[in-house]
Every structure is written in C-alpha cells, then in structure tokens.
C-alpha cells in the first residue's frame, strides 16, 4: 500500500539527516505503532507520508502510494485518502460548531449537500457524537475534541490514517477511549493505521506491528512481542519506555501474561510488599483543613471538605480521576481562589509558586533568557531599581544557576514556543524556581513527556527536595508517582480519601495502582521487579 524505499530527509540548515535511509512497506489493514524517544524522527516520518503536511527540507529516495510516487498523487486523492491527526486536539479544530467541523473536509472536496449530510450523520453515529452534535466546539472536553478531529478526518473516507501522538494531551481514560476507537476503525473497517505514541501500554495491545526509531533510523520492526524481545536482549535505552510487562520479560504484552510467567518462574507468591518504615516526618508547611470550595454561588461544590498536608523536603502526589477537583485544589492552595469554608495555612515566609498544566501559559518573553529575566527584574525597563526581595537575593547568577539545574543553558536564545514539550516543562519549572519558592505546585508535570524527559524532570525534583522544598504535584501518571513521590494522596469527589507514603499507598490498592503491583503484589515499581530478577537469576542473553 505504502512503500518507502531508501528514504532520507534533512531539515534545512542541519547537517545530520532527520531520517536516514528508511525502508518500509506498509500492507493494507496493518496497525503500526511507531515509537522512539523525542527527536528520533518518528513525527518527521509520519509527516512525509502526507504530502500536505510534509516539512521543507531535502529529501532523497522514494515513497510510493499504491505504486504511484506520493509526490505525483493528485491533490484530491492525497487529501481524501490519507488522513492525518495531529497532537494538539485544540489547534486542529477550525470551525465553531461540531457539525460544521465534521463537514469541513467534505466541503473542501466539493461534495454536494446530500452526500455531506449522510456522511456527517454516519460519523456522528459511529463515533457517538450525537449527544453533542449541536454543541460549540469550545464547550468540548479534550477527549471529545480529539474524537471530533478523528471523526472529521474519517468523514472523508481515508484509506490510511496517520496519527501523531494523538493521546499525549489526554487523560488516561480519554486516551484509552480514543485508541479503542482507532482500533475499532482498524478492525471493523480495515483502515490502515500508523500511530506514533509515548504511552505504549494501550497502543501495543492493539498493534499488529511495532517500529522503533532511534536517531532517524529504524532499529526494530516487527510484531510488538518480537520487538519487545529484541529491545530486551539489546538492552536498548528505549527498553525503559516499554510497558512494564515488556520490561520484565521482553515478549510479554499484558499484566495477566506477566503474572502467569512470574508464577511459573518463582515461588515468592505469598511474599508481602516491603514497606519502608514511615520516614521521620519533617515540618508540615502547607495545611488544608476541611476546605469547601465552589466556583460560583449556584454551582455545585468542587472541594467538599478537603484535608491535606504537605511536608518540607517531600514530593507529595495527588492522584485521582477526572473532575475529582485536583486542579481546583491546587489553585486554592495557591490562593487564586478563596475557599468558602475551611482553613489553609502555610508556614510563615514560605513562598508558593505554581507551574500550570500548560507550561506555555507561563511564558512571556521572546527568548528563554528574556523570559527568565522577566521573573527576577520586572522593573528593569522602567529604570527603577528592583525592590529588595525578601530572603535570598535574586541575581543574574541565580538565572545561570537555575538554567543549569533545569538544563536550559543551550536553549537560552530560542523562543520559548520553539522548545519541545519536555524543554517547555523545564523552562516553566525554572521560571517558578526563580521566585525561590519553598512550596512548589505542579499540575500534570509529565503530560506528553517521553520516558527520558520524565527521568530528567524527576532528577530536578529530587534535587529541589534535598534543598528542603515541598513539592505538591497533581498527576494521572501512576507509574511516575509510584517511582518518585514520597507521599501519595487519592482525591475523589472533592476530598482526599487517603494520604500515605507512596509504597504503602500503592501496595494497598488493587485497581488504582501500578502495573508492577498488579503483576506481583509484593512489588510497587518496575525497578522492584527488575532488581529482584537480577538478584535471583542473571539475565539470560
């Protein structure tokens, strides 16, 4: 169907090719997951397959679509046959109403009203859009928006569907629903799917083929299990980004497979989870007591008697489903909203800073450097000496120091919007740190980050905690919290249901817990299991 032969691509002004001698053949009906760390070339590859989205640069080699060079494909077929869904749900929506968005592509193709009416109806029915068919696009949730983007592409009846990290901005439930719909399209309609993804647990379960890219090359290509085994044996860094069962055994895809495998290999079935003794609790720096909050007088309560404590020198993670009030809780802690009832106390002289869910909304300057300076010297251009800050003086030195901590030195001259997702997150963190907060609030800090960037972020957070900062983060990312948070709290229905040291927290849950804990009740993180195997039996190569 698609045939890529000796294809290379170099961005203008770069030495190193972004794609290096790619050879791939895509058969009709395949479900391909392309994975790789950020900058491995997977998005570039995907964009090359859609003529309208192909970036500028020098290309060598050929891409054939049904035996015809892609570049010679007529514009009408290229638009209709090859569907492309991008990462950000919000930016792809063109019009203000759902029905118009569904019809947009068909209008472009010049279909008559009767045809459009039928196709739009079909799509609305297939994707379950009917309940919100007449809504404004602005009223939709992120998951609904991305589903709408998919539906409006499918209305054009494409043969092949290209999806560029479509779920990175969605919460886990919406992401699973979205991938489920894509899988249904593949299974029931035979649509060929090529998907790039960071969160591989769900994607691998549906995929018929996985391709791993590194440095612009394809390093692995085959069935997900086979690819998992190859990476496992190579001990490749990408192996760390694989789903937990795959990290353990290589060719295991699901938790239940891994459980069976584990049971056949060892006898430690009755072992208890080793729970560290509770650490000597440091000083509580932020305390919420029976806090009630609602946004408007007549709306319903978002926080319903929330109790919460954050300690100095600890990472506290607040987990919970959508709409449990997690982000609202952060904004109340920050003082952006005043609770109707209850008390929030923070230790004296403890400054609170926050990084919002979308780090972009924190950026103001034209370059990273300017943006960082903006924080420390707001009145430089007014020619008024900056007011002396309380506590430690903030100087240009501290910018350098924090830029180094957040690994931003090489990016100081770039525009904040040109940074990658992980770099933007670090810049936002740097801006918040420049205010020298004693309490740092983070809203979904790992959203859209790959495994490598998550590790870097965790490294920074641990350094801060060592200096005595209290970090409160709100997240859907169970694995990240299990690995790095000291204390975890479960939020439900506007309350903190339980707050406990991370290991005890996850060991006590049976559904809301890590994959490693579901595989073996005595383990919490994947590292627990891996180190157990290393001790027990050296890895067979």
């Amino acid at each position, binding site marked *: 169907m698609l045939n890529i032969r000796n294809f290379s691509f170099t961005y203008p002004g770069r030495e190193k090719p972004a794609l290096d001698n790619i050879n791939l053949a895509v058969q009709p009906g395949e479900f391909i997951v392309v994975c790789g760390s950020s900058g491995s070339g997977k998005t570039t590859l995907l964009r090359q397959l859609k003529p309208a989205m192909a970036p500028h640069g020098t290309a060598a080699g050929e891409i054939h679509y049904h035996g015809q060079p892609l570049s010679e494909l007529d514009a009408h077929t290229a*638009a209709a046959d090859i569907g492309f869904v991008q990462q950000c749900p*919000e930016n792809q929506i063109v*019009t203000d109403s759902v029905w118009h968005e569904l019809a947009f592509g068909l209008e472009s193709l010049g279909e008559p009203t009767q045809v*459009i009416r039928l196709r*739009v109806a079909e799509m609305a029915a297939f994707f379950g859009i009917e309940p919100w068919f007449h809504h404004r696009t602005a009223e939709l949730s992120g998951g609904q928006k991305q589903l709408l983007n998919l539906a409006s592409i499918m209305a054009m009846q494409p043969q092949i569907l290209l999806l560029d990290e479509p779920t990175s901005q969605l919460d886990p439930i919406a992401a699973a629903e979205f991938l489920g719909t894509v899988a249904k399209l593949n299974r029931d309609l035979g649509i060929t799917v090529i998907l790039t993804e960071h969160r591989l647990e769900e994607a691998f379960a549906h995929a018929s083929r996985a391709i791993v890219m590194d440095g612009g090359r394809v390093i692995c290509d085959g069935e997900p299990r086979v690819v998992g085994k190859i990476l496992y044996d190579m001990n490749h860094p990408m192996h760390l980004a694989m789903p937990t069962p795959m990290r353990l055994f290589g060719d295991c895809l699901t938790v239940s497979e891994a459980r069976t495998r584990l049971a056949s290999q060892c006898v430690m079935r009755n072992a208890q989870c080793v729970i560290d003794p509770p650490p000597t609790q440091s000083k509580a720096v932020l305390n919420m007591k029976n806090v009630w909050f609602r946004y408007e007088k007549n709306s319903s309560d978002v926080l319903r008697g929330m109790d919460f404590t954050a300690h100095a020198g600890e990472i506290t993670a607040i987990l919970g489903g959508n709409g449990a009030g997690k982000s609202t809780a952060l904004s109340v802690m920050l003082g952006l909203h005043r609770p109707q009832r209850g008390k929030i106390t923070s230790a004296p002289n403890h400054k609170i800073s926050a990084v919002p869910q979308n780090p*972009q909304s924190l950026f103001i300057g034209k370059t990273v450097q300017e943006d960082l300076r903006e924080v420390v010297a707001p009145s430089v251009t007014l020619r008024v000496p900056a007011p002396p800050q309380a506590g430690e003086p903030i100087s240009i030195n501290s910018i350098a120091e924090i830029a180094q901590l957040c690994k931003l030195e090489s990016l100081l001259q770039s525009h904040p919007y040109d940074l990658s997702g992980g770099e933007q997150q670090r810049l936002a963190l740097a801006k918040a740190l420049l205010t020298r907060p004693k309490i740092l609030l983070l809203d979904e800090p790992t959203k859209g980050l790959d495994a490598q960037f998550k590790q870097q972020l965790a490294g920074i957070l641990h350094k801060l905690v060592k200096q005595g900062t209290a970090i409160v983060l709100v997240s859907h990312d169970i694995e990240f919290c299990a690995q790095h948070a000291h204390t975890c709290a479960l939020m439900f229905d506007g309350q903190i249901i339980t707050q406990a040291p991370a290991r005890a927290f996850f060991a006590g849950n049976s559904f809301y817990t890590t994959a490693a804990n579901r595989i073996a009740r005595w383990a919490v993180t994947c590292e627990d299991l891996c180190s157990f195997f290393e001790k027990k039996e050296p890895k067979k190569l």
Partner: protein
Amino acid sequence: MKTLHPITSLVYFTALIGFAFVFMHPVSLGISLLGALSFILMLEKSRALRFMLTFLLPLFILAAAANLLFSRQGVTILAYLPSGNPLTLESTLFGIAQAAMLASVITWFRGFNLVMTSDKLVYLFGRAAPALALLLSMSLRFVPRFTRQMQAIAAAQRGIGKDVTQGNVLQRARHGLKILSITVTWALENAVETAGSMRARGYGLPGRTAFAIFRWTTRDTLVLAFVLSCAAVIISGAAFGGLQAIYFAEISLAWQPLSYALFAVQVVLIGVAVFSVAPRAFLYFCHAKARKSHARGVPAPSRGRS
C-alpha cells in the same frame, strides 16, 4: 421558531420588527409589545423578567418622560410644567406610544438574538458569500479561545507571584501589553497548526461547497406562506388607512371595521410566533406526526422548551 429554517425565521422577524417599528396605532403597539414580552418570557423565563424590570421598564419611563418634557406640540393642554412648557394630552400619549414602540422593537431584537444562534447567522451570511461564512465561523471559534488564553496567562503569572493587577498604572499597562503580545504570538503559533489541519483536509482544492445542516421542510413553506400573506393583508390594509394614527395637532385614530380586522391579523401573526416558542404541548398540537401519536394514546408530552 427555533426549529425553523433560518430564512423563514429571518422573514418572520423582519415582519415582526418592521411592523412594531412602523405602526403607531396604540392597539397595534399594545399587541406587538405584549407579544414581544411573552415571546422572551417563554424563551428565557426568569431572566426575561429581570430584563424587563431592570432594563425595559426604566427605558420605557425615560423615553416617555423625555418626550413629555421637550415636546410642545398638541392642542389639549393639561397643565404647565415649571419650565413654562405646556403639558399636552397629545404629547403625553405620543410619548407613551413612542416608548412602547422602542420597547417592543428592543424586545423583539432580543428574541431574534435568542433564536438566531451563530450557526444560523453564519448560514445566512454564507448564502451571500461562502468564504465569508467560513471566516465568520473561524472568528467565532478564535475570539473566545484568545480571551481564555489571556486569562490563563494572567493566572499563570499570578501563580509565580507576579500579580498583573497590582502596581502603578505604568506597570499594569506594561504587564497587560506583554500578555497581549505573547497571546498574539501564541495565536500565530497555533494558527500554523490549524492551517496544517485545514490543508490536510483539502482546504484550497477547487470547487469547495458550503454545507448547512438546515433543511427546508413543508413546515417552512407553510410558515413562510402564512407570514407573507399576513404581511400582505396588513400592509395593504394599512395602505387604505386601516391603522392610521395621527397624534398632532389633534389625536385621530382609525377605528373602522377594517382596523379591527387588521388587529386580528396582527394578533394571529404574533400569536403564532409566541406559541411556537411556548411549552411543547402547544407544538404537538400543530404537528402532524405528534397528532398521530396523540391518537395512539401516547401520554401528554412533558412540558419543556421547544
């Protein structure tokens, strides 16, 4: 009214607003004002009531009083104002009539706004120029997004302790400009992606069509015929002086049999508009399909907005 084709609604409202504006006969004004008020009451319930009390009533009094104070026309002098101007019966009545006209036109426009959602307006524009319709639809999406992003940026700044609402005027202005500037950058940045999404869906191919979900139904034909014939009767009747109302110098109002007939037609024209937005029970009454299900003994439909 809400489920009618936009063109039918547009013609209907043109007739309602036009007649409210043109005819100054007190009975016509009364019918129009009462109709307009019950129209928005049906649609908005308590919010309409608040609108009437806090906006419409003061406006009515102000408009009537202004005319009273400044008009010197009329022959029947009731009293003399402190300013020395005579207060005449004619100018009093004319003031009230004008205030009623103003109030009813404004109320009908509010009704128009409630019924003609942006979808419908975009469609009506699109009839004239499809490119304009898309532009309008995109702007309707863009403007609220832009303001929301500006608020998000301001909130994020407060989150790192930089309150943009504090400081002297110069500082606040500078902060405001910074936020505006970065939001523009943000919008341009995102526009690149939106443009990509448009190109990916074939925007720019020749022969683009414009789709609308509105369908022309028999009901539209019937309603349109009804509105046009009512309008024809009213206009020709008015041409024969059936709705004549002269306030100055002496009041002379038409009270012929023709006038009564015209009032009746007006009541019907406006009444149908009001019933169309009335609780659903009324709609079922005129709807053929509903009548069938009624005959089969389906329980009375729940009361709700149509």
